[in-house]
């Protein structure tokens, strides 16, 4: 049982304000992922939860205890660091045992827990080795093991996979997910990789410049981003954006740019009508664009010139120019297209996003 709640959390380093008024409830057993570009304050927030960084203003509670002034050792947390931070002069077994020895556990209990963690992570054969004799993936496992043996209330992960190569990263990601299902411990995970955030998180916090942009389940962030930043950050390849003006055309609101005119459907139209005459940003994900057929309503179609064709095998990415905007569309791998072809494309109206040009908030 452990909930973590952050209340109006702030951190200033001298004059730089790196974490601004972060409010967050992390539920029991939840896997919460902090994601954002580097320098967005996500790691600082994690370090404040760990007690490694003093809190400038606000409050952190673990369960119902305010831990602002509690030293890291008394918070009952375990942390996995980006560079693993294995104690280089100790064997793997001693690395795992260190936290338990510091807490004066019985020898038999220490041994039991080490063996248990080692078998969960499949590192039984490595126990007598020194960290420098391990590969990156093995070090990562030992670092995880060191957190597991402690059986803490909260796991904290600081970009634990970013030092691994791409293949191993995918594999460890799956293992982390399984591990969380098995141990069911409240976890806070920091990453700059939105794929990790989407795949691992029960919920995801997107941060930028010290501010929380949006909190929600991965698909919620994907389908209904709160602002342009979240829309562009989550999803790969990234969402397409086009600078448009909202105008009325024959009684219907449309998004218009030179060489591009897209109709706005249903509810979006209602919300857009209030902003008629304003500048806005139109957003559409690459997979929501397809080659137009007779079934597509003409107001959702547009002309584009293909600039680059990227064959990925499972799909084709078309880098195109539509009016002033550069767009990427993900289309069927069977399609035969070449650079400089002119295409008529259609988009799924219900998947259109519109953002205020000034505030960047979703309309």
């Amino acid at each position, binding site marked *: 049982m452990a909930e973590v709640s952050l209340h109006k959390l702030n951190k200033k380093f001298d004059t730089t304000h790196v974490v601004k008024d972060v409010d967050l409830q992390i539920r029991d057993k939840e896997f919460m992922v902090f994601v954002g570009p580097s320098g967005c304050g996500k790691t600082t927030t994690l370090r404040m939860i*760990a*007690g*490694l960084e003093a809190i400038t203003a606000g409050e952190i509670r673990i369960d119902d205890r305010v831990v602002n002034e509690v*030293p*890291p*050792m008394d*918070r009952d*947390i*375990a*942390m996995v*660091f*980006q*560079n*693993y*931070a*294995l*104690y*280089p*002069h100790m064997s793997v077994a001693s690395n795992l045992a*260190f*936290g338990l020895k*510091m*807490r004066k556990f019985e020898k038999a209990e220490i041994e039991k827990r080490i063996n248990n963690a080692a078998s969960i992570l499949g590192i039984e054969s490595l126990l007598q080795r020194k*960290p*420098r004799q391990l590969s990156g993936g093995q070090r990562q496992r030992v670092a995880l093991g*060191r957190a597991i043996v*402690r059986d803490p209330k909260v796991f904290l992960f600081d970009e634990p996979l970013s030092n691994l190569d791409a293949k191993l990263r995918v594999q460890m990601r799956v293992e982390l997910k399984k591990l969380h299902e098995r141990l069911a411990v409240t976890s806070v995970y920091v990453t700059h990789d939105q794929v990790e955030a989407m795949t691992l998180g029960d919920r995801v916090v997107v941060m930028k410049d010290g501010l929380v942009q949006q909190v929600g389940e991965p698909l919620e962030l994907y389908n209904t981003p709160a602002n342009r930043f979240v829309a562009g950050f989550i999803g790969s390849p990234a969402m397409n954006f086009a600078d448009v003006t909202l105008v009325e055309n024959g009684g219907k609101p449309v998004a218009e740019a030179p060489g591009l005119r897209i109709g706005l459907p249903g509810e979006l139209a209602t919300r857009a009508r209030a902003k008629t005459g304003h500048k806005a940003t139109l957003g559409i994900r690459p997979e929501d664009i397809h080659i137009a057929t007779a079934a597509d309503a003409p107001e959702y179609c547009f002309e584009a010139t293909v600039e680059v064709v990227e064959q990925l095998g499972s799909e084709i990415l078309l880098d195109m120019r539509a009016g002033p905007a550069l767009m990427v569309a993900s289309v069927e791998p069977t399609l035969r297209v070449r650079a400089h072809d002119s295409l008529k494309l259609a988009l799924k109206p219900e998947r259109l996003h519109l953002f205020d040009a000034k505030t960047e908030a979703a309309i």
Partner: protein
Amino acid sequence: MIEGALWRRWVFYNIPLILFVFVLLFPFYWMIVTTFRPDGELYLPWNAPNYMPFWTNNPTLEHILYLFEETNFARWMFNTMFIALVSTVISLFCGVLAGYALARLNFPYAGGLGTAIFITYLVPQTLLFIPLAEIIRNFQLGDTPWSLILTYPTFLIPFCTWLMMGYFKAIPKELEECARIDGASRWKAMVYIIIPVAVPGILSSGIIAFTLSWNEFIYALVFLSSPDQKTVPVGVTSELIRGDVFFWGPLMAGALLGSIPVAIVYSFFVEHYVSGLTGSVKG
């Protein structure tokens, strides 16, 4: 390695290296030859018919025996060893703690304090011995080993502090943070994690501190006067140079024997020493 043609390797690598090694090792060679050369050969004029400066066919131990029988050399060795060891231990202890504090505890003015400590190291000993002599006299420590044991740290502690500070800074901060989350206090994290990881750095500063105090001359010359209390560098030069007469044989024998402990210490820890100076922490 230098890449390219053979002549480039010789001109830019091998020949400079050979010259360098020759310049460095020749004094030692001279010292060894002189130690074992009988007086009759030592004082031959250079234009004598059988003059052979770089070799001797009649090696002798007479100079070494002279050292032990006619002078207090054994006593000087003991004095030097005792003084060097104790002052090294004191300086290392202070240097490690101070270096850690300056590198890791973000207290106000840590930077300024670090610089201040460094500046004390820059004050030349040839000036500092004058006020120190006054202090030694006031505490009535003159002519005792303690006059040196307490004054050597004045230059050894700043030295050790700076070396250790650099070394501690090179150790990833996360190691310590992890230990503190694991349940160690700052003190325990230092004792169980940081200091063991810093052993190469501690050994290097220990070796250098030991060598500096072993070879120290000016304080030893000023603060010690009776033959019984002298250290090797002072004893050898003051007892074996009488007026303008240099007893070259015993002098060189003393120098040779005096450099053996230092050589042993270096060769013993040379691997740690190199990694300590280059500040590498292997993860």
